[in-house]
């Protein structure tokens, strides 16, 4: 390797091809057919994209809280991977919501230079977010973080696997890519739940505490919103009730093998997160996520 040329090449090169992420802002859905399928209300479609996109964005933010604090360097890399995958899914889904005109009140604050995905991520109020309580909850310790990731990834994988056949071509494409990613997330979390559940006395206690803290949050996933019901009937979305058996089966299998007690499944309840009802932990998370962008609404980054 010739040392002068390496540095000079990167100091002088103007060719964008060498940049890891490109130098301009690429429209994330560029080249994809974004026509809304016949008989589907674009407002419903956009609202559904926000549900899946906000789940990904909020969980990515929670996982990112572990960066520089993780138990091992290998885990910094792994958690970074999972968060990056979820951020990528969030960007596509929020861009899709924006492309069908679902921007909520974000455009009242965001200037035109802010792309849709950022208008939605940075300029909506907590009550406009559509994520479930499962992803918004605090991380807790590493055991609870991994139990939550296991539960969230199991649900998401079951949903994305079905969405590969969605009548919306954009959702189908996002799901096809996402299935591979989320299968890894679920596997990574399951391996940790096994190690912690069947590791030492302390790790078993912490893993069980994590399970007991996470399980009640699953109530927020049991009942479809009206939007999900309508879109499921139209072959576009997945009714969350349809994946519950699969989710319970996977989680029970992992917990059994991890020598952890499986709590009773929480009784079905009316959706909360999906209709914008959140606890203070989401407002706090969004305060950090949105603060800088909101201080400079006319800035480009």
């Amino acid at each position, binding site marked *: *390797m010739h*040392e002068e040329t*390496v*540095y000079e090449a*990167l*100091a002088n090169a103007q060719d964008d091809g*060498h*940049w*890891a*992420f490109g*130098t301009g*802002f690429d429209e994330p859905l560029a080249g994809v057919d974004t026509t809304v399928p016949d008989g589907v209300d674009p407002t419903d479609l956009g609202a559904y994209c926000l549900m899946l996109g906000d789940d990904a964005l909020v969980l990515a*933010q929670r996982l*990112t*809280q572990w*960066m*520089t*604090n*993780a*138990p*091992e*360097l*290998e885990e*910094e*890399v792994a958690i*970074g*991977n999972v*968060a*990056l995958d979820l*951020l*990528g899914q*969030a*960007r596509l889904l*929020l861009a899709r919501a924006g492309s069908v005109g679902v921007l909520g009140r974000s455009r009242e604050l965001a200037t035109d230079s*802010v*792309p849709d*995905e*950022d208008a939605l*991520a*940075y300029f909506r109020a907590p009550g406009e977010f559509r994520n479930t309580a499962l992803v918004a909850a605090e991380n807790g310790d*590493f*055991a609870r973080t991994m139990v939550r990731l296991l539960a969230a990834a199991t649900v998401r994988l079951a949903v994305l696997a079905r969405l590969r056949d969605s009548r919306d071509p954009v959702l189908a494409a996002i799901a096809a890519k996402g299935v591979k990613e989320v299968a890894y997330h679920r596997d990574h979390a399951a391996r940790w739940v*096994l*190690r*912690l559940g*069947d*590791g*030492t006395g*302390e*790790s078993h206690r*912490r893993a069980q505490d994590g399970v007991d803290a996470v399980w009640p949050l699953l109530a927020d996933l049991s009942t479809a919103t009206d939007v999900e019901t309508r879109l499921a009937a139209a072959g576009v979305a997945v009714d969350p009730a349809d994946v519950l058996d699969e989710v319970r089966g996977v989680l029970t299998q992992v917990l059994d093998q991890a020598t952890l007690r499986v709590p009773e499944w929480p009784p079905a309840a009316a959706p909360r997160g999906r209709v914008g009802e959140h606890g203070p932990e989401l407002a706090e998370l969004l305060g*950090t996520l949105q*603060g*800088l*962008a909101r201080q*400079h609404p*006319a*800035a*480009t*980054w």
Partner: protein
Amino acid sequence: MSAPTLERPAPDETALQRQFDATIAADHRIEPRDWMPEGYRRTLIRQVAQHAHSEIVGMQPEGDWLLAAPSLRRKSVLLAKVQDEAGHGLYLYSAAETLGADRADLTDKLIEGKQKYSSIFNYPTLTYADVGVIGWLVDGAAICNQVPLCRSSYGPYARAMIRVCKEESFHQRQGYELLMTMMRGTPEQRAMVQDAVDRWWWPSLMMFGPPDDASPNSAQSMAWGIKRHTNDELRQRYVDMSVPQAQALGVTLPDPDLTWDEASGHWRTGPIDWDEFTRVISGSGPMNAVRIARRRAARDDNAWVTEAATAYAEKHGA
């Protein structure tokens, strides 16, 4: 410590030493199972460990902006970068392990202050422009330091550095690209960039270490092919590259004495405040305590996780 009488090499060791010297003279690589003088091994472990520590501690200044990055694209770019640094730390600890060191032991030495890391990471990141300036100047200086190490005489270190340098070059471009975008933005954004340059320029010059006449270990490291250029040579190369980049960006480097020396074809800086360097590297920088406290917490608060993984592996023969 062994008694002085034992230090004279045994006859077969003389032959090994000759072979080692010949390998170095021919500019070939020393590999983990080759014989090497203890001083060479010790020096390399210190240097590689210090480099690994720098990657890991270096995740923190920028990591502080991960949760608040102002766009989802910037958040992805920064997360990928911080993740790369964890990866660099892993390669480098692995390279140190090929010399007989142990990662956990090196981490303990970092936390106990027995081994150092680059003093640049003891400065705080006050605005998002710092993320860009760290990419441009700090990673730029790191590349200047590290590209010659791709030819280091120790094989595993040299090979690790090739990969590290490729990734660092992406980081530098990303940093510079963020700054270019901010300079095209609002007046507040331009002011942020200039402020960050004002704070990071001098510390980045100190990243090359003390001047040659005050660098005690340089001569031996150069003789061993562990180091390829002196601190001052590398610093000069960095200054010569950075000045035109600053001009292209439209920022002023905070050095009234910075002048172009026509005769030598080099940019000349004013005097560097080496007292500040000594203060920061000896632990009195603005963020030293915070950086080490976070490493200590990551180790101690999560020790039960590592214990559980070990216990599980023993039970299941994994």
